[in-house]
Every structure is written in C-alpha cells, then in structure tokens.
C-alpha cells in the first residue's frame, strides 16, 4: 500500500493522543488548583473551618468549662459585689458579662447564630437573585423591563432603615402570611437580609446571561427544540455559576455584619440567645470598666468577616486569573 502524505486524519489522531497525555482540565479544576496555591486564601479557609468547628462544638466548650451559655453566676463568682463584670481569670477565660455569664461560652454560641444567618440569608439572596437574573436576562423584552425596574427599586431602598422598621413592626405584632407567622427571631432576620440583598446578585447574573444568550450553542439548543427552562438550566446556568459562587462568598460576611448590626440595634435575635451583635450592644455601657466584655465578641466578628472576605477574594482571583486581584 502506498504511503501518501500524512492525512489530516492521522495528524488529528496524533494530536489527540498528545492531548490525552497532557490531560484536559476543566475550568473548575484549574480554579481549584489556583486556589490551593493561594496561601492567604488557604489560611482564610482554615480560619473559616475553625470558626465553624467552634460553632458546632459550642456545647462541648460549655461542658468543658462547666458553664452554660445562659447560666447567670451570682456575685461574687459571676460579677463583683457591685454587680460589675469580672475580668478574665482561670475560671472564666474571657471574663464574665454584666449578668454574670461566661463570655467565652457565649462567644462560642454566638458563632452558631452568625454562621447560620450568614449562610441562610446568602442562600436565600442567591436563589432569588439567580432566578430573577436568569429570567430577566434570558427572556428579555417585557420580562426584563419589569424585573430590571424591580431590581432598581430594591437597590434604592435604604437597607438598614427598612430592615429595622420591618423587624420592629414584627416584634410588636407578628405578621401572618397564610400559615406562616413572622415574629422576632432568626427566621425574620434571615428573610429581611435575604430580601434586601438579592438585587445585586440578580443584576450580576442578568448581565452575564445577556451575553451568553447570543452564543451559538444556545441557538443550537433552541433549534433542536429545547424548551426555555431546559436551556436556562442545562446551558445557561452552569456558565453563570462561577460569578454566583464568587459573589455568594463575598455576600456571607456582609450578611453576618447585617445580622450583627440588627442585633446591635436591638431588632435582631432576641435575648437571651448568645449573639455577637447583641453582646456588643450589652457591653457598650460597660466599655470603661470591662474591656473584655466588649473586645472578645468584637474580635470574633472581625476575624470571621475578614476570613470570609479574604477567602472570597481568593476564589474570585482563582476563577478569573486575569482580574487584577485586590490582594495582589
């Protein structure tokens, strides 16, 4: 058999063999590999895991110290005879608060509320925001006009004022929506924060979808007879997942700060639940006599939000290496 010039087919086969040896990596694998080499992000991840462990193990910490989160120790053990908080000691490592409760145990329990609200409110915001953004970007026309206006309205609302108003109304008279009763507590805080943060997610997703909608593979799917929602879920959603994940990581610390702010203003999680925001607000009148009462919950809050922000920056840089990262 005559051996002619190398056919295109042969060349292609050779190339694929080489490619197989190199091993293809998905954008997700690449991002993950980049993230693993980002030292700051990995430290931040470690801190986040540690805080989550503290939250989960809060009952264990309480058992080890022998102090429950809501147990009030009488003077002279829990407070001084004058009723002031007691300084850190071997017995109370972080000191006690104005009611003679162990600050260490309460800070540990406070992590539960912060993480729970941070994650749940972010989830709520991301789900609503993604749905609205996908619908607005994909369907366009009237749907887009209406939804874009709704997003505009949500972004013009002063969050904190509305949130405290809503929370305060609810704390006096619980609102009944069908079988659901909204009253002061974790649920309303999650709903309020989620409701006021989805608009940004929706705007980001909408922008991405507008660009993707014009791609050939969407047209191909449509010409094969795929339905709108199938195209949205199978073809569009995976391509907007990266920005959603990046923004969600950065939304968690914002939600944690929002929850702490609401509790600090007295309209968040009601007492006696241990919560960093309400602890700081309780500590405010004592900041001259009892620094530990103020400083430990403050530190817990700062470390948590900082860790999530560093991690979020790292994840963003990992997904988009060309982006000029803010941490260099």
């Amino acid at each position: 058999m005559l051996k002619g010039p190398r056919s295109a087919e042969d060349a292609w086969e050779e190339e694929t063999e080489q490619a197989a040896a190199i091993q293809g990596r998905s954008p997700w694998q690449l991002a993950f590999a980049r993230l693993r080499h980002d030292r700051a992000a990995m430290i931040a991840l470690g801190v986040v895991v540690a805080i989550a462990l503290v939250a989960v193990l809060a009952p264990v910490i309480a058992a080890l110290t022998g102090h429950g989160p809501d147990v009030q120790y009488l003077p002279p053990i829990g407070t001084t005879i004058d009723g002031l908080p007691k300084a850190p000691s071997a017995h109370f490592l972080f000191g006690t608060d104005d009611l003679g409760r162990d600050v260490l145990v309460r800070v540990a329990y406070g992590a539960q509320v912060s993480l729970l609200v941070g994650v749940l409110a972010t989830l709520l915001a991301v789900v609503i925001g993604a749905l609205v953004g996908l619908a607005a970007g994909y369907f366009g026309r009237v749907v887009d006009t209406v939804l874009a206006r709704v997003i505009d309205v949500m972004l013009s609302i002063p969050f904190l004022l509305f949130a405290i108003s809503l929370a305060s109304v609810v704390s006096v008279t619980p609102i009944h929506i069908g079988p659901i009763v909204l009253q002061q507590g974790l649920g309303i805080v999650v709903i309020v924060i989620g409701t006021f943060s989805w608009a940004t997610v929706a705007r980001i997703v909408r922008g991405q979808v507008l660009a993707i909608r014009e791609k050939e593979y969407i047209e191909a799917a449509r010409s094969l007879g795929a339905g709108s929602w199938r195209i949205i879920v199978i073809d569009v959603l995976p391509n907007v997942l990266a920005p959603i994940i990046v923004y969600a990581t950065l939304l968690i610390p914002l939600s944690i700060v929002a929850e702490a702010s609401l509790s600090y203003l007295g309209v968040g999680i009601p007492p006696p639940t241990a919560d960093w925001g309400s602890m700081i607000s309780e500590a405010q009148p004592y900041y001259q006599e009892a620094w530990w009462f103020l400083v430990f919950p403050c530190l817990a809050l700062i470390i948590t939000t900082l860790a999530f922000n560093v991690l979020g920056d790292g994840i963003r840089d990992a997904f988009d290496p060309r982006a000029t990262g803010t941490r260099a």
Partner: protein
Amino acid sequence: MTRFLIRRLLLGAFVMLCVTVIVYLIFYVGPGTGYVARALAGREAPPQTVALIAHRLLLDRPWYVQYGHFLSQLLHGNLGYDYYHDQSVNSIIAQAFPVTLSLAVGAAIIWFTIGVLSGVASAVRPRSLLDRGATFTALVFYSMPTFVLGLLMLELLYYQLTVHGLRWFPGSGYTSPTQSIFEWFRGLILPWLTLALVSAAAYTRLTRTAMLDVLGEDYIRTARAKGLSEARITFRHALRAALTPVVTQFGIDVGSLLGGAVITENVYGLPGLGYTAVQAITNQDLPVIIGVVIVASAAVVCANIVVDVVYAALDPRVRLH
C-alpha cells in the same frame, strides 16, 4: 440629553412611588388594622382617642382611600404629625438633618481622600510592600462592622486618653456649629474617622482596580513615550479616567448617608436622622419612622439620578441605553 434626563426623572418618580407602596404595606397593611391607630395614640390612650386618630387618618376606610390620602399628604410635602413629641414630622426631620449632613459631608471628604490616595499608591507599585500593606489594611477595615470600629475608637481614643489625662475628644453628643465651631469640629472627629475608615476601604480597592486597568492602556504608554513625568501621568492622565467608577460609587454612598448614618449616629449619640429613626422605633413612634424612611429613600433616588446624569454628560454612550 433632555430625553435621557426626562426618562431618568420619570424612573426616579416611579421608584419613589414603589417605596411609598412598600412603606404602606409594611406599616399599615402588614401589622393589621388597629395597630396603626394604637401605636400612634400611645400605650395609655383611651379607646376614644384611638378611634379618633383612626378616623382622622381614614384608617376606618378601605385601603385605596387610605393609601390615596397617605400619598397625597406626601405629595403636599406633609410627612404627618408626631403624636409622641407633639410636633410635626417635618420639623423633627428639619432638626435632625443638619447633624446627619455634618457627619456625612465631613466623613465623605476624609474617606474619598484616603481611599483614592491609598488606591493610587497601591496601583502605581503593584505587589510592592506598600501595595500589600495598603490592600490588607483596607480589607481589615472593610471587614469591620461600623459599630465595632466606633466602639473600639471610643474605648481607645476617648476612654483610654481621658483616663490618662488627655481630654481630646468628647465621648458623645453634638454641638451645633452656630454655638461653637470648635466644639462642633472636636465632637465630630471620632464619628468622621469611624465612618471614613470603614468606607475608605472600599474606595482603596475600587481605585486600585480602576487604576491598574487604566495604566495598562495604550495612551498611558504614549504619554510615557512623550517623556511626561511619572507624577503627571499618574494624576493627570490615569487618575482622571480611573475616577469615573469611583465617583459613581461616591455619589451613591453620600446619597445613602444623607438618609442617616444609623449605626455611627447611635454609637456616638449624634441626634441625626438615623438616631431619630432608631429612637422612634424604640418608642413605636410610627409617623417619624415613616418620615425618615421616605426622606432617606428620596436621598438615595436623587443621588442615583445625579450620578447617572453626570455620568451621561461625561460618557455619551450611556445615553443610548
């Protein structure tokens, strides 16, 4: 441009209309009938007073009459009557606004200066020690809740200094500049710094990113090739282009601050709009809460319009959208 302006104003009016609907839903419909009159009358009011207030505010009429009345009062510039302080809500807001204005403007000047300068310094030498230091510091302040920074400032700069005999800053309260300019300034230094440091961080990050983008452009290379000084390139050529997104954000932030810096005002006991709102909420003083919420939303909407119009004036492409 006129068409753009008209469309933008109409959109602003529409947003404000939506805000009034949401306010109406939250405060009038949500808690159910009876709550509003009860809250307005105060806890100890006899049933006759409650009924009288309900009747005067048309609370015994159907919802569209109520909302129509609420809206027409607003359109006449009447924010209602505060039964708690026996004063009109307009005058309460007029008293609180100068405090918020003093706080917002002072803080805005500080944070814009710090944010832009540190952002430029970072971007000019990326990955240098200065850049890493500045960006990390920015991230720490960015992660810090306003009330945490405020309370730490009070602990360190007010209490510890005062204990050691340095009475530089008062702990809380507000002095009107008509009384004493010096006391006004002294009392606002800590609140200004608190608000400014928390906000400056975002501007450091924003300016740095924008500057790095611009510094990679061809016209910067051209400017270098012409032999211009590095300072002239940085400030006259690059910063000018990089400032657009920063100024946009600045307008929006100042607008939302004019509606009350809720947290800062409460930490330092400054009787501005945000403080008034929280007090009103504690007292269940409904007309004041509604008044502040409406004024604050109007401030945000106006700021957004100003920003968009300025942006459109600078960049003609925006007008087409």
